[in-house]
């Protein structure tokens, strides 16, 4: 019998099970009495949440009615870029304040290089109670790397519905990874491979199905899930986090990374179908070179469901905000709302598993809720995910670490204008930690221009592919002006190639 359980599946399972997990370091809490001047920092990340689909940023569908209101008391960043178009590098850049080719977590489900294990937002806030949580297994793999600097790493399945994995992981605490792989092979009922168990696998799938059934009416498309759990509700995660935060002695640093609106898109019943027959028109764009042409009809439907799923994010973030407000935590807290990368519904692709680097895939929301702020401030400057670490260090009175590659964001930095800098976002799925970057998709935004720089792909016959867009007059990236602005293109290409050369020097 052929074993078709792929490496991807293996990673999927083993990745969500960090090799060890830290129990809440409560002893440490008891000792901390923060001076009033120290503010908490809470970072809320919703996975694969594109700024393109957010009404606050001008999207035609009203996907964020709650957040639009809350924004009246926030600094709203309109041109904020994730450092990649998928989770591992994008999240690692938020956490380390460095670009993917620096922190080296460029392949899926990896950790940052050993050099950066002690260079993260968790190490910067080493006098805080540092907490982390994620529904996303790949983010937990990153936490595993940073674990010596995390005081309370909430296990992934703690905020999911009951699953037998949780029992197994509780019993075999010191060997979560392999015991869970064995449990998956033993007890998980599969349609395409054998279970080691003759009877238990059937019983379990029956009972776990029953547990989930209770919520069927609320989630007609199925429960939110990352596939390697038995489903979860954002409501539960928000409630449990807020109650845990209420118990803490300040100050704390929390990094909470929720899966929605990442696929599978599972909006609750109250939003389901909301955008199905509205007047929204997809802007027609030619199929990307990395995609097969055709299949455009499904994109419209998937986009609508994704937009409905954002409504769920919007509602639950609103609830989180109000809970923090009413418990009094908010007035002492820098609350950040953002995403690790975007999601796209155009040019023949749905989602973000694509080598392209268009705006919907990399432009993400960023809002900073500053303690005591009562008015809205809109920032149109182009900003990067790597700026968050420097900014949060700066506003809480810490030294910005010299290894961080980001800038302090406006309005918090001293000089109001920086010399114009380029913003990088990249995907280099094949690059190992200690190897030079030999293939990548690089987005390079400078001023009004955005360069797409693709190289090392077999589909391009290992040739470079270069596109240039004026994203201020052409935000949809419809007309490639590389031939009309050869000088600008040349300069930007030169800059990108110089950067790659500098990065690769260390690994040759």
């Amino acid at each position, binding site marked *: 019998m052929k074993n078709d359980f792929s490496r991807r599946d293996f990673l999927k399972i083993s990745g969500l099970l960090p*090799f*060890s997990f830290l129990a809440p370091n409560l002893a440490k809490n008891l000792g901390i009495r923060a001076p009033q001047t120290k503010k908490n920092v809470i970072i809320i990340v919703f996975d694969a949440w594109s700024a393109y689909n957010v009404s606050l940023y001008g999207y035609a569908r009203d996907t964020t009615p709650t957040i639009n209101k809350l924004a009246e008391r926030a600094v709203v960043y309109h041109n904020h870029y994730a450092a990649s178009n998928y989770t591992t590098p994008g999240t690692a850049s938020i956490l380390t304040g460095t670009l993917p080719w620096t922190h080296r977590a460029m392949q899926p489900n990896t950790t940052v290089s050993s050099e950066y294990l002690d260079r993260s937002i968790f190490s910067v806030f080493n006098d805080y109670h540092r907490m982390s949580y994620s529904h996303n297994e790949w983010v937990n793999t990153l936490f595993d790397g940073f674990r010596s600097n995390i005081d309370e790493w909430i296990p992934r399945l703690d905020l999911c519905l009951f699953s037998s994995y949780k029992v197994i992981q509780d019993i075999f605490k*010191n*060997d979560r990874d392999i015991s869970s792989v*064995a449990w998956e092979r033993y007890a998980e009922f*599969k349609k395409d491979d*054998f279970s080691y168990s003759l009877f238990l696998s*059937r019983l379990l799938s029956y009972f776990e199905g029953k547990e989930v059934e209770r919520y069927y009416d609320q989630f007609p498309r199925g429960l939110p899930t990352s596939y390697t759990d038995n489903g979860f509700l954002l409501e539960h995660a928000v409630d449990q986090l807020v109650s845990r935060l209420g118990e803490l002695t300040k100050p704390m640093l929390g990094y909470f990374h929720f899966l929605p609106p990442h696929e599978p898109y599972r909006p609750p019943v109250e939003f389901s179908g909301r955008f199905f027959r509205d007047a929204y028109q997809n802007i027609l764009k030619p199929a990307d070179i990395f995609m097969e042409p055709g299949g455009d009809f499904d994109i419209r439907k998937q986009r609508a469901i994704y937009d409905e799923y954002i409504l769920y994010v919007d509602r639950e973030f609103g609830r989180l905000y109000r809970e923090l407000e009413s418990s009094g935590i908010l007035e002492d807290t820098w609350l950040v709302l953002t995403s690790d990368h975007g999601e796209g519904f155009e040019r023949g692709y749905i989602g973000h598993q694509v080598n392209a680097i268009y705006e919907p895939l990399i432009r993400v929301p960023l809002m900073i809720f500053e303690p005591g702020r009562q008015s809205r401030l809109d920032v149109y400057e182009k900003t990067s995910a790597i700026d968050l670490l420097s900014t949060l260090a700066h506003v809480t009175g810490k030294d910005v670490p010299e290894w961080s590659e980001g800038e302090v964001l406006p309005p918090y930095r001293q000089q109001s204008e920086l010399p114009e800098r380029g913003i990088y976002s990249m995907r280099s799925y094949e690059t190992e930690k200690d190897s030079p970057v030999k293939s990548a998709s690089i987005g390079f935004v400078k001023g009004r221009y955005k360069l797409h720089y693709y190289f090392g792909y077999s589909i391009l016959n290992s040739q470079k592919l270069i596109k240039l867009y004026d994203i201020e007059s052409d935000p949809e990236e419809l007309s490639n002006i590389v031939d009309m602005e050869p000088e600008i293109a040349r300069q930007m290409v030169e800059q990108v190639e110089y950067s790659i050369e500098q990065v690769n020097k260390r690994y040759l």
Partner: protein
Amino acid sequence: MKPITKYYSRSNLWTLFLLCAFPLHVWAMIFAFRDISWVYARTDAWDAIGVLSYAMVFAFVESIWLSIAVFILGFLISLKWSSELRVAALGAVIFLVSILAMLVQLYITLGWSIPDSVISFFVLFAHPGRTVYLVLLAILSPIIAGTIYLVLGTRKGTQILKDAIDKISLLMMVYLVLDLVALVVVIIRNIQGSVK
């Protein structure tokens, strides 16, 4: 309520456990051994042994649960039967049900297909899945009962079954030794933690 000893002797219980453990272990080991190279290719030999060991430990635990269920089932068999005969009958049930469970997994995994006409018939019911199981049960219980009757109805048949049970029990003892080794591996892994 009759005392338990009227239904089972102590050695009966042990035999019953071995009979339950046997099919579970055979099935689990076939697929766990098949996966060794797969795990090894992705991590290392110690993890491969780890997955196998956990599988054995899980199979042992599942065997205990199955034995308890079968043990309870045995109270349904008339006291007119001797306790040996009761265990032999239960043994036959375990085997037939296990083979059925194996066939179901093979059926699902290999994608054996049911003729369309049969599917369209079952779809007519409110709970097609449930109906399929009921029909299967209706077909299989007489087969199981018939087999047991035929085997236990003749002295020769009974003797063959008893011999088989003895041989299986012996083989199962070997598996139990492996379970013990597996348990030791699991304990070591959990003491040292998976330091990588």
